[in-house]
């Protein structure tokens, strides 16, 4: 059996390029996650207000995000803007916009869930002890909310990283695209390189996500006790 791509991987700066591609994906997810967390917290708190307009608008927003594939959203933003309005939107920027749009909804829902999950008695017994509203939030509500929220938002990070693999479909040069290029360039000399190279990307993505998942489930277990 011919070499399955390990030699190709080690040739020249191929591996460095691959890692570079992965870093592009990670950068997109990191930026999107940061925006999502910030906007998501605001959105989540807004959703806890009992206002018909807010609740209808946020329901529609959440439902769009829930049922529209991220890929469709990517197409709308990328092709929609570039081709229709003549805006030359950078593919990476388009990805960040879409992932933030998606992440904000997810994060907002988590925040709303965590805040409204705190039983009413917790507020009442805090007031009964003589704490004022600010103290109640600071000492009672926020710490409990964070404990529920942090593991879930860490999970959002891994989902974000996994979803960034889609950006190659709108032409961002990330790990998968780089792999395709390498395979293409070595098609004659190493026709079977696809196996090893795709396996490598597979492992790289796993290595990027797995520790984060472990951290999330560790924190979840630790704080649920």
């Amino acid at each position, binding site marked *: 059996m011919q070499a399955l791509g390990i030699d190709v991987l080690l040739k020249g700066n191929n591996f460095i390029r691959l890692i570079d591609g992965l870093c592009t994906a990670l950068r997109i997810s990191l930026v999107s996650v940061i925006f999502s967390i910030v906007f998501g917290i605001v959105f989540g708190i807004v959703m806890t207000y009992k206002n018909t307009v807010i609740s209808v608008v946020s329901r529609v927003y959440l439902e769009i995000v*829930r049922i529209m594939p991220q890929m469709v959203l990517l197409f709308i933003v990328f092709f929609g803007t570039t081709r229709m309005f003549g805006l030359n939107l950078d593919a990476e920027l388009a990805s960040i916009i879409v992932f933030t749009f998606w992440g904000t909804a997810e994060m907002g829902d988590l925040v709303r869930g965590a805040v409204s999950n705190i039983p009413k008695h917790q507020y009442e017994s805090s007031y009964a002890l003589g704490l004022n509203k600010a103290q109640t939030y600071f000492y009672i509500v926020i710490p409990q909310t964070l404990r529920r929220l942090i593991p879930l938002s860490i999970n959002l990070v891994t989902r974000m990283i996994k979803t960034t693999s889609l950006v190659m479909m709108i032409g961002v040069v990330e790990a998968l695209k780089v792999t395709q290029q390498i395979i293409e360039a070595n098609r004659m000399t190493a026709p079977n390189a*696809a196996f090893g190279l795709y396996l490598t990307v597979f492992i790289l993505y796993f290595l990027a996500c797995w520790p984060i998942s472990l951290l999330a489930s560790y924190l979840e277990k630790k704080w649920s006790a």
Partner: protein
Amino acid sequence: MLRRLERSDRLNWSVIEKYLPLYEKATVLTLKIGWLGVLFSVAIGLAVSLIVHYRIPVLRQTAKIYIEIFRNTPLLIQLFFIYFGLPKIGVSFSPEFCGVLGLGLLGGSYMAETFRSGIEAVDKIQYETALSLGMSKAQVMFHIVLPQAITYSTPAFVANIIFLLKETSVFSAISLMDLMFTAKDLIGLYYKTAECLVMLVVFYLLILLPVSVIGSVVERRLSYASFGD
């Protein structure tokens, strides 16, 4: 977003009419592979969750590794590996089969976790009560544990189905002529971006909105049938 698209560039209905059959065909393919994948993932998920629940040696560790691997890698990469990588060591499948296989394996890892936590949510003393009535272990599982576990896991189960049907959008990468493929193709060929995108959205809505609506109805019904409220 949609409304802006429509206003800025009035839709050309003749274009839509012309491409409609292509989208219909693509939708049928997406639905077929999507739901087959969902079925496959339910089968894998059930098997894996029972293996983990009954602590069957060796299989249990294998199941854990499987769950970790597939929950922590993107479907797109899984598909590339299955479709482009595996043939190089002599294992090749049709794109359709790859789609179902990839979706099934990915979904199986999610379904397994969902079913497992559903089973765990049933109180231990419910098992004991059923045992004390003389039921066999299989009867306890079938009559007492699973019905309750299903109700506990329905919300996550519905979310998984929606997630999996959404994931079908990456199939175009392994040259399956699904909705994304059709849209991208038409945009590239004819520059009818607005029409193509609107149809893409509409057809995905047709696929997913019913699942979302039926899902929430079922959740409510099941919870009533199971717990009477």
